[in-house]
């Protein structure tokens, strides 16, 4: 495997936060993700790019637990999480957003965020969980208010999520991930379908709210990826084509070919 800048040393030193080891997923004949070994360092902003069908979303699904691998493993903070169910991985600190906006449309904005915040506070007794009024938890309310303010939706908590404008809904989506307080934030095309202005605002928001968390981003907007990432991994047909800093990846011959489809005819 030729990588653009094969930095075997992990980002920022020390153990990687996330590692995939020989990760493979087949759908019948198709190998959507093929023997991937990826390491993501603590606090790194890593983008995953590649043509359609490269296996980006499948990789996300494998890491977050929506799919189980055919072979190989996903290691998060030194623990093999490959066989855990999605909610268990969230408890370990893996949070994700969705490509197609997936907020609770029938519930209010505030309720959406509160649900996410509530999920992160787990040391409550079952009795409280079942019988105490949800508005009466001080810590939960604070956290909800805090997240609403950070995603710029304070004062709009009473609105039904399905009636929000598209850009606001995408922000709410990010707010949901944020409220679960993950170590590793996985964002699947957070700016898809946004205008240039909205895209800029969203990227600023991501930069603001995520602080020093580790980020894994799938994104088509190349310019954005180039500007935001510490390192970029390029996938093609389920395989890792290159990993490295933006400049190195941009100059990589194979990457250019994968994108422009050269060398086939």
């Amino acid at each position, binding site marked *: 495997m030729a990588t653009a800048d094969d930095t075997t040393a992990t980002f920022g030193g020390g153990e990687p936060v996330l590692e995939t080891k020989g990760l493979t997923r087949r759908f019948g004949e198709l190998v959507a993700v093929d023997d991937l070994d990826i390491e993501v360092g603590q606090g790194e902003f890593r983008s995953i790019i590649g043509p359609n069908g490269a296996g980006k979303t499948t990789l996300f699904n494998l890491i977050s637990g929506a799919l189980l691998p055919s072979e190989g493993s996903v290691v998060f903070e030194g623990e093999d999480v490959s066989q855990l169910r999605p909610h268990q991985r969230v408890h370990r600190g893996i949070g994700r957003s969705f490509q197609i906006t997936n907020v609770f449309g*029938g519930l*209010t904005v505030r309720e959406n965020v509160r649900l996410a915040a509530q999920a992160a506070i787990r040391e409550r007794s079952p009795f409280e969980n079942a019988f105490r009024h949800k508005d009466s938890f001080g810590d939960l309310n604070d956290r909800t208010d805090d997240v609403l303010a950070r995603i710029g939706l304070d004062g709009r908590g*009473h609105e039904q999520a399905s009636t929000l404008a598209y850009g606001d809904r995408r922000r709410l989506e990010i707010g949901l991930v944020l409220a679960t307080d993950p170590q590793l934030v996985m964002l699947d095309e957070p700016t898809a379908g946004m205008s240039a202005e909205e895209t800029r605002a969203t990227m600023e928001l991501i930069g603001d709210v995520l602080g020093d968390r580790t980020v894994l981003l799938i994104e088509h907007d190349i310019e954005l990826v180039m500007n935001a990432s510490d390192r970029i991994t390029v996938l093609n047909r389920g395989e890792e084509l290159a990993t490295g800093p933006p400049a190195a990846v941009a100059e990589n011959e194979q990457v250019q070919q994968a994108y422009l489809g050269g060398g086939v005819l």
Partner: protein
Amino acid sequence: MLELPLVTAGETLDQFINGLTVGMVYVLLAAGLSIIFGVMDVINFAHGELLALGAYFAVAITTAGIGNFWVALLVAPLAVAIIGGAMERLTIRPLYGRDPLYHILLTFGLVLIFVDAIELIWGTQPFRPLDTGVLSGTITILGFQKTLYSYFVIVMGAVVAAGAWLVLERTRFGLVVRAGSMDRDMVRHLGIDIDRYYTLVFAFGAFLAAVGGVVFAGRQSVGPGMGGSVIIPAFIVVVLGGLGSFRGAVAGGLLVGVVQSFVRWQVPFLEGLVVFLLMIGVLLIRPQGLFGSPEWHDPGEGGELLTAAGSGVLSTRRRRLLGGGMVAVLAIAPLGIGVLYNSYVVNTIVVDILIWGLFALSLDLVMGYTGLVSLGHVLFYGLGAYATVLFAVYLLPSIWLALVAGILVAALIAWVVGYLSIRVSGVYFSMITLAFAELFASLALKMPGLRAQINPTLDSLGLPTIPPLTNGDNGIGADAITYGLTGGPEFGDVSLLGEIHLYYYVILALVVGSYLVSRRLIDAPFGSVLQAIRESEQRASFLGYDTTMYKRRAFVVSGALAGLAGGLRATQNLGRASPGFLDWLLSGEVIVMTLLGGMGTLYGPMIGAAGYLSLEELLLSNGIDQWQGVLGIVFVLFVIFVPRGIVSIPSLVKQRMDSSSEAPPEGEPAEVSD
């Protein structure tokens, strides 16, 4: 040990033939049911009524002297096919794109209409089996004499099934139908108007069912309820074989027919139980059925459940006041006895409404809030009733402890059923809950036979024997249930003032209390998660919620409340529980009430119960025997035009009035908590 009778080859063959005869009727019924589901995602509860219509038409044709059996066999199915086609055009067509639940609800309404229409036209007296002419003679094979008709049914069924198979495999119609069940939209992209085929598919299914009906009528008497008696086995056949699979329907139909026949012959006390166990087993091991192929079936657009949450026009405070007012009115209602109305209104109708309201409330917790459409909720209601009565009979006659026992037993079984069922989703969940409910219903009926079989063995081993738990058809009753722990005044006996009874207040308090507990659950973090699961289960699990666990817990709470409703009903029923408490029609009725009122609101279903029962009472007291049919019509109209239920009417009206000033179409933003 069980003593098996000596078996000869001839007897075996005889039973095998019997099984095939019955199986063929199932095949004809299930084939249409399965194709209709495969192509349109419609679960047609009214399919059994189409079979009944075929049988009645045949009776009408032969008794009116229009023709003999053979004419009926040709004409009746054609007539039913037309009715089936019309049914699709007029009622089912407006619902495409909505959640399959609405098809279940709609066709359930149609069942009520068909049943009453049949009664209205043909009365309630059963008709003798059709005169099958030459076929009524007998024929001897392997020393066993059987009517020629048995063999005819098998040949006839095989021919019709083969014909249907040829239609599906060899004709243009069949090819489009099969392709449509795999990928509807791609069929459209090829320039084929698949919607036009839907009517034909329905007519085709109705035709097959009606052939089954005529064949049935040549063997057995034709009476009301025949549609209802065949639809459940037909569902089992379809689920066993695989929803949408024709081969599955044929194999499943014959299998169920033969298994039933052998079970009735060899282990009669297990009759009715085995097929449900078979279905549950298959669903758990291979949810797509024997021949089903989940990847071939296009799940369609899905569509959302239309809850009434957020459609209210009142503020939370106003709503609370209104609710409090309602309870106050109910509390002083008994004072009007003898002045404004008689005691029947309060002590029977209002009590009925309260109990059914509680039952509907329990269903709302799983259906309206969690999105789990339980078709077998009557199970917990019935179990609650039986457990309450049995506790009073065998342990202590105290109503309080007996009700608690009912709640606990219902909750326990709900945990078990939920544990097994929640792993399958959507339509399969609905079907498996239905199967569990039917399993227990047969168990209640078969208990005496089971005891007779098992007790001697237990006795000979020196083990305690099983006491009479259900008494089968007769039901079981506690002579006296008391207010005290062991003695004291009897439940129902304590008159506070004239016709005002203490039990009225006991029931009112328990129902209001249940409502408050449910409301609190929904307003607590627990309830938020349930609603999140309804909105998007995937998202909820990626927030870190163990959604399976939450669904199971909701199911247990719901089962417990349904158990309380059943227990209260049984104490009201002079302390008797009978298999009628487990009738699957009750599951249908409670779903109707929940939807009628507006699910996902807790109070909506209770209002729905009040509406349903009041309308029933109104119709009955005005001497309209066809009350079920009228209710069915009202219900069908609701499903089509007011799917969010009665409680959404004010906002619909408001919208209509505001529409001149461009009101937002979504109504006002939801206050989720109320």
